């Protein structure tokens, strides 16, 4: 099968959606399918993946409370036409097609077996009623929609009044399960945190506020924090006597992340909201680290209401401290959580997730049919004879 993927975000910028597409494309290539990814890129020379076709330089626009680096406009549209016209794809897999981006362009230009994956979770917006009529004619061309979580599915239902099949994001379970701990980091009672901690919604402050309580019972604990930044601001916030308990590691790569998780006794995810899936929890499960997480909808769903990790009341650092203290005391429960977590994490392995997505492709695709340009675009091309098909 020949599959085309469209990424809304720049390929040379790290991000959840991009790594999802890359892993999925590599997985399918390994299984013998042909893959091609169309993506924006700030700097073409940075792109080392040979299956990626770049569509131009993205622009930074404020969208939905964050800055998104996306690409659209007439030049991008002509690249998309060219890519689809010459690609002979069986299936076109568009990621995040409901934001102004390359994916939305591709969705409006293409015709055939179109599949869309919706990653984001967003609260109900006032502008939704204004956006929906514009998006509807485009989005309804998708033969199948995938949401990465119940939260993303709910967002889709509210904003676009359309349902989706839930298929989680994938991870490579083996690379986390087989990693070895880093002897430099591995000390007793290690608590870990990964993320851009300067963003309030990642919840580092909630965790920092819980530290004094934890230190009263477990004076020997350590908190390892990985993510871009030196954490000077965070250091200011906490009690000086606790500063030597904190270790900021800076940004870590994928291999380091696997051994980081393996070096922990407990992983804490204090995110206060805005999460749609929580891939880090799936990775922590695969590493066999027991988890304490806030009870935001995405985490509750991923941890099956607390079955595979303990939940604390969102933004309540006292509750967080209680959960951490009792788990650090209880080696037996931690061991049990570790085993059941590793088993459960198979559900997120690419072997499983890839099969499920392929299943959706088969449903969207009619045998013998190729993705082409939609009739409006063919007409457009004929009238203005802009390019040969």
């Amino acid at each position, binding site marked *: 099968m020949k599959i085309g993927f469209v990424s809304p975000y720049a390929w040379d910028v790290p991000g959840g959606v991009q790594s999802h597409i890359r892993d999925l494309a590599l997985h399918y290539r390994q299984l013998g399918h042909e893959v091609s990814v169309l993506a924006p890129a700030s700097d073409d020379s940075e792109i080392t993946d040979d299956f990626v076709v770049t569509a131009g330089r993205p622009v930074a626009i404020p969208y939905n409370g964050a800055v998104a680096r996306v690409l659209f406009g007439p030049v991008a549209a002509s690249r998309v036409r060219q890519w689809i016209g010459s690609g002979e794809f069986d299936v076109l897999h568009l990621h995040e097609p409901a934001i102004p981006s390359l994916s939305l362009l591709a969705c409006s230009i293409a015709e055939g077996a179109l599949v869309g994956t919706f990653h984001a979770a967003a609260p109900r917006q006032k502008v939704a009623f204004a956006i929906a009529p514009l998006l509807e*004619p485009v989005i*309804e061309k998708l*033969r199948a929609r995938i949401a990465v979580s119940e939260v993303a599915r709910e967002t889709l239902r509210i904003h676009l009044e359309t*349902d989706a*099949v839930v298929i989680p994001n994938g991870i490579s379970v083996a690379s986390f399960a087989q990693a070895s701990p880093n002897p430099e980091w591995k000390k007793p009672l290690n608590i870990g945190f990964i993320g851009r901690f300067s963003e309030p919604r990642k919840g580092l402050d909630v965790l920092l506020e819980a530290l004094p309580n934890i230190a009263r019972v477990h004076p020997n604990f350590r908190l390892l924090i990985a993510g871009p930044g030196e954490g000077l601001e965070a250091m200011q916030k906490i009690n000086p006597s606790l500063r030597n308990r904190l270790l900021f590691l800076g940004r870590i790569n994928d291999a380091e992340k696997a051994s980081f998780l393996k070096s922990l006794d407990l992983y804490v995810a204090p995110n206060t909201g805005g999460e749609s899936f929580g891939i880090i929890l799936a990775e922590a499960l695969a590493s066999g680290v027991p988890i304490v997480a806030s009870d935001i909808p995405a985490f509750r769903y991923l941890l099956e209401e607390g079955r595979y990790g303990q939940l604390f009341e969102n933004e309540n650092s006292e509750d967080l401290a209680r959960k951490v203290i009792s788990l650090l005391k209880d080696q037996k429960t931690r061991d049990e959580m570790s085993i059941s977590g590793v088993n459960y994490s198979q559900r997120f392995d690419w072997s499983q997730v890839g099969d499920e997505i392929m*299943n959706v492709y*088969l*449903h969207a695709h*009619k045998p013998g049919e190729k993705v082409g340009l939609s*009739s409006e675009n063919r007409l457009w091309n004929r009238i203005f004879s802009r390019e040969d098909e």
Partner: protein
Amino acid sequence: MNSTYIWLPLTLLLVIWYLTFSANRLDRLHHRAETSWANLDAILQRRAALALDIAHTGAVDPATGLLITTAAHQAREAEISERSEAESALTQALLLLIEETDLNRRYPELFKELDTITERLKIAISLHIEAVNAARSRRQRLIYRIFRLAGHAPLPVKYAFEDDSLMEITR
């Protein structure tokens, strides 16, 4: 000069464009519903064939075998309007097999395939229901009815199916 001479043709052109655009949209939705039905039908056919295979293993007791064979044949021959009812009956009949752990052990491939088909069936059904609902609700809009934009395309047939019993099959 009266500006009507400019505005009238312009409006007319806009109306024509909008109607073509709308007809195109509906056509695409019909096409989507046809594709999803073709896929759903293919999987249902495979399931009926598999049910017959299981019933003919000889290891199924005659009563269950008879029930499954009848249900599978009825599902295969059902008219489209009675299809979902017939398929639900087959689902119920297949549910009887889940308790037969002995049979499960002796023919693991057959039951593994049943699991796979049931998983695919769930997705096929939800995609089809969505496609049909999208096409139907669009057809009901006033402008589509006034200008008969649906043309001679038949109304996509709804397919009701109890998801719950399907859930039980895959455990």
